């Protein structure tokens, strides 16, 4: 029988905190990380809100435990910061002590830094230290720099499936464990804000000029965010032999494509419905046993209708408590799945349901509304975490309380 997969370490950095504890504290205090950019050169500086990590790159280098150096993009530094914490929390001082794989996710790699020097790079008349950023554009660059800095030498991979990227990284890692390739995997994603993505989403007319309002009738779009998060996954036999501290169990997952439209979800949420249904079936949990759903909840017109319909189709009149944490962190694209997977573990560990900030008015298309106040002392045993992306990519994860 395939091994169970346990979560034994977590590390993160987002606009609401440099580590898991700070994130938890800000979630508890219901304090949003949304604001305006200090680091992107854009005409939308004071127009489009973003959830930016509140440190310049030099300070991030310190957090990441390295001296500032050329070629280490913000994407790498965010990732390395989260990676250090995840390993430390899992009690891993040296990743070489047991075969450990690394599955990373990113949507635009080192674009945050390459976009600043791109026109110098393509200009034969110019040369300088910027040339060290040439190869940082692709998504493998941050993976390899993080891997090399902390010493991963077993399997490494980078996944890019838009906003479901790190959910797919977690899934891929769990499957490699179940199939016996490696006993331990570190999976997640890293994403830095860029002028490229900000203009990309803005050109699609789905960025809100106000702080985003997921599942609200008046929502008009998303706010982008940046951050990184990694989770350490271990096989049951390894975790037991290693005497690992088990934080939660990763019981189910599904990746399904909607095959509906390049950038829009289907109105009835077919992909979301399939992903949640199959992930739950795999977890062996019933509909009634789901205590909380951390929805994708981007606050775009289309996503929230589609995801909401999928919730109503799957759960009928008994849709579990749900909320989007995007008003805290912004939409962190490739990192979102891993950040929200950590929030799922925190919900279970702390007995919390996080509020869906900025919600006021129920959507006319739906009968359901998200949780708007912080709930404490709730028994949370099973959480579904959704991540849906461009290209019809839908991913749902089920994270469960560890019970022997």
């Amino acid at each position, binding site marked *: 029988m395939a091994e169970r997969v346990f979560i034994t370490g977590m590390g993160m950095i987002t606009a609401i905190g440099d580590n898991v504890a700070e994130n938890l504290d800000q979630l508890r205090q219901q304090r949003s990380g949304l604001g305006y950019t200090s680091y992107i050169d*854009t*005409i939308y500086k004071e127009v489009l809100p973003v959830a930016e990590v509140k440190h310049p790159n030099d300070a991030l280098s310190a957090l990441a435990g390295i001296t500032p150096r050329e070629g280490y993009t913000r994407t790498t530094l965010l990732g390395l910061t989260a990676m250090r914490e995840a390993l430390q929390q899992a009690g891993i001082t040296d990743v070489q002590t047991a075969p450990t794989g690394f599955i990373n996710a*990113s*949507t635009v*790699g080192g674009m945050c830094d390459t*976009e600043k020097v*791109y*026109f110098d*790079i*393509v200009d*034969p008349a110019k040369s300088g230290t910027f*040339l060290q950023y*040439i*190869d940082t554009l*692709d*998504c*493998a660059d941050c*993976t*390899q720099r993080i*891997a090399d800095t902390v010493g*991963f*030498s*077993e*399997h*490494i*991979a*980078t*996944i*890019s*499936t*838009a906003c479901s990227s790190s959910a*797919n990284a977690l899934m*891929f890692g769990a*499957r*490699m464990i179940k*199939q016996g390739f490696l006993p331990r995997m570190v999976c997640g994603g890293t994403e830095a804000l860029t*002028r*490229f993505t900000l*203009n*990309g989403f*803005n*050109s*699609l007319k789905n960025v809100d000029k106000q702080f985003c309002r997921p599942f609200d009738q008046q929502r008009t779009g998303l706010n982008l965010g940046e951050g990184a998060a990694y989770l350490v996954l271990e096989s049951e036999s390894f975790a037991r032999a290693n005497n690992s501290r088990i934080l939660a169990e990763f019981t189910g997952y599904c*990746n*399904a*494509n*909607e*095959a*509906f*439209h*390049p*950038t829009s979800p289907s109105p009835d949420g*077919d*992909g979301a419905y*399939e992903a949640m249904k199959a992930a739950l079936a795999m977890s062996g949990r019933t509909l009634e046993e789901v205590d909380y759903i951390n929805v994708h909840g981007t606050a775009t017109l289309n996503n929230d209708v589609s995801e909401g319909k999928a919730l109503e189709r799957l759960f009928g009149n008994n849709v579990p408590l749900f909320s989007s944490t995007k008003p805290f962190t912004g939409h962190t694209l490739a990192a979102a799945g891993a950040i929200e997977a950590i929030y799922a573990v925190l919900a279970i560990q702390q007995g919390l349901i996080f509020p869906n900030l900025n919600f006021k008015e129920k959507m006319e298309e739906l009968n359901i509304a998200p949780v708007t106040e912080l709930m404490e002392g709730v028994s949370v045993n099973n959480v579904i975490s959704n991540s849906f*992306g*461009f*290209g*019809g*990519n839908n991913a749902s994860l089920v994270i469960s309380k560890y019970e022997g």
Partner: protein
Amino acid sequence: MAAISPQATFEGDIFSAPLVHTDSNLLTCMEPDYKPFIPANSLRRMTRLLKMGLTTALQSIRDSGVEAIGPIVTGTGKGSLQDTEKFIREIEQYKETALNPTPFIQSTYNSVNGLIALQVKGTAYNNTFVHRGFSFENALLDSMMLLAEGAPNTLTGALEEMTAEHFYIKSRIGFWKSAPTDSRRLYDQLSPGSIGGEGATFFVLTGTPTPDSKAAVTGFKMLYKPTAAKVAAGLTEFKDGIDLVLTGRNGDSRYEHFYQQADALFPGVPQLSFKHLCGEHDTAGAFGMWLAAQILHTQRVPAQWFPMVKELPAVVNRVLLYNHFYGEQHTAIVLERV
């Protein structure tokens, strides 16, 4: 399976098609007529990589005889460079206003996967790996895992394009040879760098053989920044019964020693190299696998493609494909005749 490459691999007979060569250090794809595959109105909006990827995927499905496609898994090191460059340029040019979102949408690394899914109504698993010389190989590993988990089949492929701008960018950090090199003499002219290339290659994979099966993948290994000893140990695991070694040799003197080590491990075993056909790129390994499967299936080698090889192997039952991308991502795949 199907391949769009700098050679005439997509249409016609690969045994009579002449060897396409270059002396400009860049092999670009011989593109087919896309009209039989993609409706004209979509064709207009799509850039090269999307057209090449989608068309190769559709052709490989036709070739496979498989009716319903299950999971779709791809690898691409760079995604749609043309769209990425276009969007960066437009942001600059139009000062971040009135931008057309199409190049942004198409620049996402999974856009070809999404397109394929749309076209074939593929609602199963869908994933895209983007890790340089491990992009295709991770897609292959994922596919083999999916088959082991019970998927009926997978559509597995790789896609890479080279643009003039990106070719120049990579020239600034030593990816290509500085002197113009005749691709037919790639392996005789050891010097730093290689010649660039591109391609789209797709396979339909099944867990059990079908009447249309071309070859079987029976061994697989990926090594990240390995020492020479680790490469040797890895290749030695696959030593038994190999009757053809296919290498990703590319004339780059800086990393040639890895291939020379492979030569030493397989004395007397016939050897072919494929980068003079497709050029160096992140997912060239997929082209290598296509070529290995062709040879195993037809029991013939397109002789005109290998004028530098005096004796071509007569019977081929087991091929070892060994490739690495600039010395960092090393991959070995064993393919067998079915």
